Structure formats: structure tokens, C-alpha cells
């Protein structure tokens, strides 16, 4: 009998990186359904095309880095990046735009830094920002939601993606644009625009609620802790409340409007919870989330971009090591100042 010698512990929990990633993918389903219902098949086509490109890029990078393909492809991390980027991109984006975004995310933001676990920036957001800076026209063209125009079908969505020259895109301003550019109407009057629904833009509010539902399920499954999302939503809501201005023409919009607009919920539960590029301790994640919430509001209210989550996340990624340095938790048997109790 030859016995093996292994260091303890000998028992392990059943979680694996792949199962964590799978859960994240599953949790995006309600949001993707809502997006598809209100804006057509554009986002779904984005996701599928982005996933194909992502797997190809991942395989290429792994081959170049001489890593075992099967072992690393099984962690689903490339699929998660692709899905998140596909959701973030405007529906009916041309194929090359998506491909450039995914390639930037996987090759540049992920593998150039050493692959999974070593990227200081959220890969999906790096891809998004590369596109936003390079192709602002394509990146700011959002389709009108159901109720305000014809929702394109699957064929049209495929055409828009793969034969963009033949596709006649219909786009319009998003509710966030409307509120930022408004300087003459009371919010109450602005809300008469058909673009607005009960709390925020038509469709957008439901998309956000769907992502919130998916996020709550992830919280329930303990894929991440509540600290960063709650801090982000709280600080965004607080900023909106501070500058609400009673709904005047100079108002930045109500807290509820901000919480249910653009990529707020998607960002709070699917982007800033990326553990690799966020702060690590509980206090650190609170600060990290609050920083993002504040930045999102600042950029939405006074910046030049349609939404702010991507920039806010990248800036917060920058500061994560700094936050970590100052938020090391008090270990057992130590006093708050780092000495002994």
C-alpha cells in the first residue's frame, strides 16, 4: 500500500471558478430578456457574436502563451466578459465594432496583464471604453424602445450586425441624454415626453429591474458580497438626491431615475462586482462602490458621455490597490491601530 502525502485540508467545498462564472451567466438572463423585449434582438446577437470572438481570442492568447487550452477555456471567464460587453454595447452594433471591443477586452485588458486573475482593469469595461473613445457615433446610437417605434426582429438584427451597410438604423436619444440636455423644462413637463415611463425611461426601468433581480439572485447564491453594489447604489442615490433641486429645469433627475436608468443596476451587480479588479476587504469594497456611485453621477450630470459606468469603474479599478492599502481589516488579536488590543 503506497499512501499519498497531501497537506491539509483534505475536504473541499463544492464551488469552482467555472460554477461561479456559470452563475453570473445565468443571472444575466432576466436582464437580457428585458433588453430583447424592449429593444429587440440586437443585444442577443451582440452577446452571441461577442462570445464567439471571445472564445477565439482566448484560444489564440492561450496558444501564444503555451497554456493548456481545455483547462483554461473551461473556466467560462471569457464568456462572461463577452456577455457583459455584449449587453453593454448598443444593440444593432456592426460586427467589427463588437469584434474590436472583444479583442481589446480579452487580448489587451486580460492576457497582456497575465490572464484571468491578473487584470487590474475590468476587461469588459476596457473593451467598452476603447470603443467609446474610438467610435463615438456608433457607440451612442441606441435603438428606440418598444412602444416608440418598430422593434426589429431577429433577421433585421443579424443584418444590422453582419451587413451593417444595408441596415438602416433607427436611433434616438436615451432618457439620460434628455435629462442632461434639458435646461428649459421642469422635470414634470419633461416627463410628458413619450420616452419616459413611470420612474425612468420606458423600457430602461424594466431592464434595470431585471438586472436587479439577477443581481439579487447572485447575492443570494453568495457569488459576491453586498458591500460594493449597495455602496454604489446608495452613493448614486445620495448624489441624485443632493442635486435633485426639486425637479427644476436644472435638476439632474430624481434618485429613482438614476437608479433605474442606463447601466446602473447592470453595473452595480455585474460589473463592479468583478472581484479581480475591485478592492478586497469589506471596508475597501464599500469605499470602492461608493466611489463608483459618486463618479457615475458626476459624469452623468456634468460629463460628455451618455452613460458613466464604464469610466467610473475604470477609475475605481485604478484606485483599488490604494484603497486596499488603507483598508486592511483588523485581524484577530490586534487592536484597531494595528497593535494589540
Amino acid at each position, binding site marked *: 500500500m503506497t499512501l499519498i502525502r497531501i497537506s491539509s*485540508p*483534505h475536504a*473541499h467545498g463544492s464551488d469552482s471558478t467555472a460554477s461561479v462564472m456559470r452563475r453570473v451567466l445565468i443571472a444575466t438572463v432576466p436582464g437580457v430578456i428585458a433588453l430583447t423585449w424592449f429593444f429587440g434582438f440586437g443585444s442577443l446577437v451582440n452577446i452571441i457574436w461577442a462570445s464567439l470572438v471571445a472564445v477565439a481570442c482566448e484560444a489564440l492568447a492561450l496558444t501564444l502563451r503555451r497554456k493548456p487550452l481545455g*483547462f483554461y477555456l473551461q473556466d467560462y471567464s471569457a464568456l462572461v466578459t463577452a456577455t457583459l460587453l455584449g449587453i453593454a454595447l448598443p444593440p444593432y452594433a456592426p460586427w467589427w465594432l463588437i469584434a474590436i471591443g472583444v479583442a481589446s477586452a480579452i487580448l489587451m485588458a486580460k492576457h497582456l496583464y497575465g490572464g484571468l486573475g491578473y487584470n487590474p482593469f475590468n476587461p469588459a469595461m476596457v473593451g467598452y471604453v476603447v470603443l467609446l473613445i474610438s467610435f463615438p457615433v456608433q457607440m451612442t446610437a441606441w435603438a428606440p424602445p418598444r412602444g416608440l417605434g418598430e422593434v426589429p426582429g431577429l433577421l433585421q438584427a443579424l443584418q444590422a450586425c453582419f451587413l451593417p451597410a444595408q441596415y438602416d438604423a433607427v436611433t434616438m436619444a436615451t432618457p439620460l441624454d434628455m435629462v442632461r440636455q434639458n435646461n428649459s423644462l421642469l422635470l414634470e413637463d419633461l416627463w410628458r415626453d413619450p420616452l419616459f415611463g413611470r420612474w425612468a425611461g420606458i423600457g430602461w426601468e424594466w431592464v434595470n429591474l431585471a438586472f436587479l433581480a439577477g443581481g439579487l439572485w447572485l447575492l443570494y447564491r453568495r457569488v459576491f458580497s453586498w458591500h460594493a453594489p449597495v455602496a454604489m447604489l446608495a452613493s448614486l442615490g445620495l448624489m441624485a438626491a443632493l442635486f435633485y433641486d426639486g425637479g427644476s429645469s436644472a435638476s439632474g433627475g430624481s434618485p429613482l431615475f438614476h437608479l433605474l436608468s442606463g447601466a446602473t443596476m447592470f453595473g452595480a451587480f455585474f460589473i463592479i462586482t468583478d472581484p479581480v479588479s475591485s478592492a478586497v*476587504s469589506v471596508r475597501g*469594497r464599500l469605499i470602492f462602490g461608493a466611489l463608483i456611485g459618486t463618479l457615475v453621477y458626476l459624469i452623468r450630470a456634468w460629463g460628455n458621455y451618455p452613460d458613466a459606468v464604464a469610466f467610473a469603474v475604470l477609475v475605481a479599478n485604478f484606485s483599488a490597490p490604494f484603497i486596499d492599502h488603507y483598508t486592511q481589516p483588523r485581524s*484577530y488579536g490586534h487592536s484597531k491601530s494595528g497593535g*494589540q488590543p
Partner: protein
Amino acid sequence: MRRIHDFHGGIHPAENKLQSLATGIRPAGIPSQLILPLAQHIGAPSQPLVSPGDRVLKGQLIASAAGHVSVPLHAPSSGQILAIEDRPVPHPSGYSAPCVVIECDGRDEWVEEPSGIRNYRACEPSALLEKIRSAGIAGMGGAGFPTAVKLAGKPGAGITTLIINGTECEPYITADDILMQERAADILAGVDIMRHILKPQEILFGIEDNKPAAIAALKTAAAGSDVEIITFPTKYPSGGEKQLIEILTGKQVPSGGLPADIGVICQNVGTAVAVRNAVIYGRPLISRITTVTGDAVTAPGNFEVLLGTPMAHLLALAGFSAEKCERLIMGGPMMGFTVSGAEVPVVKTTNCVLAPTTREMPTPPPAQPCIRCGLCAQACPASLLPQQLFWFAQGKEFDKLEQHNLFDCIECGACSWVCPSHIPLVQYYRAAKADIVKQRRDHEKSEQARLRFEARQERIAREEAEREAKRAARKQAAEKRAELAAEGGDEDPVQAAIERARARKTAQQGTAPANTPDGGVKQLAALREKLAKTEQRLALSREAGEDNKIVTALEATVQRLRDRISAAEQSPAERETP
């Protein structure tokens, strides 16, 4: 009702305790051989008092404590000493260490009717401590620290709280559970002795709520006494000393300190029974309760087993199928370590022998990259940041590791258990700790060397300065004399100096024969005589077949003497004095 505190983190692994609780404590009997390592405790190994061939009786002292932090060792059964030699011992590194091997005769004869102290309350604590010390008791929860040393404590450190640890939070193990179920009164008798020694203000008996039978037995046995039986929710590792103290008192043991620093002492239930047996009945520690479990045994359970019993003997009693088992673990699945083979003996700290099947505990999959998910930080009972520690350990950033309190890690394995990337985190921490300790030791050594060097430099400088001062003083004195002479003109100093030098020379000639040709001849003769003697001795040694070392040394001496003689013959003027 006492308030229960919670500690940070913790996990809920599958308990797997029912398997070994199906039957009560079973006797393991007397194996044909007992292998008793001399180091079954923390501290200096015991020193053997017997020799191979000696007949020993049950309970006879066979090795004495070597110093203060050490314990003696007793023969668990009667028989003959077969050998005192290195055998594989249960240790994480799987090495062999000195053991006393007893060939049992099966008669199990006691050395003499042991004498106990029935009325221990009338006794001085020091006498009771001596009884505990001489019974060879070391903490039976797993660490094996000499119990008498722990109970004696630091003088002046007032112990206010005695905590009895009946938590047994490790999965699979039920040795303490069954002991509490079946021998609650014995445990409490041991606790009462410790109370007499320590005189604490309160005695808290901590036990997880997954042991209802044990809790009921203890509550019955403790009825009317002031021992508080406190149950709390099951969570690993609530049985860790620091965690249990926090659960029961809300206080934390200072980092790098001992529980005694906050007035607390923890003792395991098995230790309490051993203390009772030692004090009341005078019986040394020669057996313990050990759980044998895992899917590779068909009849798991708890055994009362003689120390030194090979694990193979126990496993056979439990119906072990070796072909199903890939690793054999002493202790539990979270903190236990694999042993090198089933011939390894049960020692004072063996609470469990775990024989899992390959399916039960499969070989871990290869580690994936850390995605810093933070599950480990949520699970860490010491509130560390395991993912950061892992990062620093990989990069060998020792400063950062210490800054992130690596040495507060209790190696409970909770972080590795939750890690979705299957990274063997604890293994990294153990290695890093060992590296840092080594580095510290090296640093200490070089620091000592530096201090020695500096002290030497200082001494040389000081001596130089002293000489300089003397020279200056002499010079001054000479000048003064010269002045006096110039003034008085009675005596010529130059003439006086010449006189003195002449006198010295005559004296030297009389006492230095080695410098004369005659002296050289004498010395040569002495050398030759010495050479002859040495050669004779060498020849004798060779004939007698003495140790090689001696022969070589003699040969070297002969050669050296020959060299010196030839040198002396060639140039008598230049030879050195012997």
C-alpha cells in the same frame, strides 16, 4: 443565560460524525507491539530509562522528562523492550524519530498498585501539579502541550476563567463527543481538580450544538455544580482555542500572546479525564480514545487504545480495506495530516485515524488562478486577507506577509475549503511561515556575528588606546626625570639605561637554553623519542584493529613529528621552539 459571541468567518463542512457514533467506546486490546515515540508532546523529547531486553510492567516509567517543558513516558502494557530506535512517527513531515518499542507479553501486569490522592482538595496545588507532571499528561486535543506546565502558568498571572473545550468542530471526529456521552462524570471530576489548582472565578464548558447526547449527559453530571455548560451553533473552527475564547467570553487573545494574558486557560475534555486518572488513581497516561472512521473502514467507531498501538492494529479492528484508501490521515479532514504508513503508532495527540476512500476525498484538481473572489476572506476566522497573503507568498514578499499578519493564521483550512480555484492556500502559508522563521534565524545569526565583530573591534581599539596612554605616561615620566637630572645633575640617565640593559641581557642568557646549540640537540632528542613512542602506539592500534579515526590521527602525528625532526636537522638555527 450567558451571551454567546460570534467569531468572524467560519465554514460549514459536511459533519460526517454519525458514522463513528453508531457504537460506544470499544477496547482496542493489546497489540503484539507498542511503538512509543519519545516526542509525543511539544517540548524536549523524553529520555529513555530502559534498555533493549529489559522487562517492563504496565504503567512503569520508561522515559523521563527532559527539562521543564517535557513529559515522562510510561509503558502502556507489560512486556519486553525490543529496541530503542528510529521508527516512522505520526508527523506532517513523515520522518522517523526515536521510539521505545515494546514486545507485549499480553499479561498486562501493572507495575504496582498505583497510589492516588482521593482527597485532593486537602492537597497543595503544587503536589497535584507534580502528580499530573509525573503522569506524562500532554494536551490531548491535538497540540500536546505539557498540561502541568500550562496549569502551573506564569506566576502572578491570575486565571479568572477556565474553559473546557468539548467543541470538537472538526468533521468526522467523535472521540470527545463519545467521551462526554459516556464519561461525563469523569470529565467533571478532572475539571474539579483543575479548579482546585487554578481557583478560577468561572468555569465555562463549551460544546457545539450538534452533540445533543453529550450535552444532556454533561448537564446531568454538572447539575448542582457551578460549571456552566454552554452550547453554541456549530461552525468550523469554533473549537480553535482563540475562537472558543471569543465565543464564550467575547475577548480576543492578543496577537502573539497566550490565553493566560487575558486570564483564560483552555483544557480539552480528554485532558480532564487524564488529570482525574492521574490525581485520584495515580494512573499515568497510557491510553486514549481515538476515532477510527472514513469510508475505507466498514465498522467505524471509537476505541480506547493503548498509546503506541500501530494504526494498522486499530484499522484492522474497524474493518479496513487498504485497496480503497489512498491516504491515511491522523486528525480530521481540515487540519489532520497524512501519515507515511499504517505502521505509524497512536500517540497522546491522536484523536482520529481517518481512512477515506478515493471517492470520499479525491485528489484535488489542479489549482486555477486566484480571481480574488474574497470567499476566503469571508471564511477566515482570524480576519486575515488570505487572497492577499497568497499573492505575497507567491512573490516571497516577507515584509508584506508579516504586515498582513501571516503569523495570526491558525492554519484551520477554511480558506482552502471555500476556494473556488482549488488553491492549496494553507500550504503556501505554511511554507511562507517556515521561510520567514528561517530568515529570522539567519538574520539573528548574522546579527550576533556582527555584534561579536564590533565588540572585538572595540576591544582592540580600547587596548590600543590604553597602550597609547601608558606610552604617553612613560614618556612624560621620562621627560620629568630628564628635567630633574638636568636640574640636579646627580645621575646620568643615559648611563643608567645602559646599565639596566646590560643587566637584562645577562639574565636572559642564563634562562634560555633553547636558544643555545646545546638546547637544540636536547629538543631534537625529545622529538625523536616522541616519534618512536607514537610509532609504537600506531603499530599496536593497527594490530588491535582499532577505530579508523584513531589510526588516521596517529599516522598524521607520526608524519608531523617526522617533518619537524627533518626540519630541525636541516636548519638548526631557524627551527621553531616547540
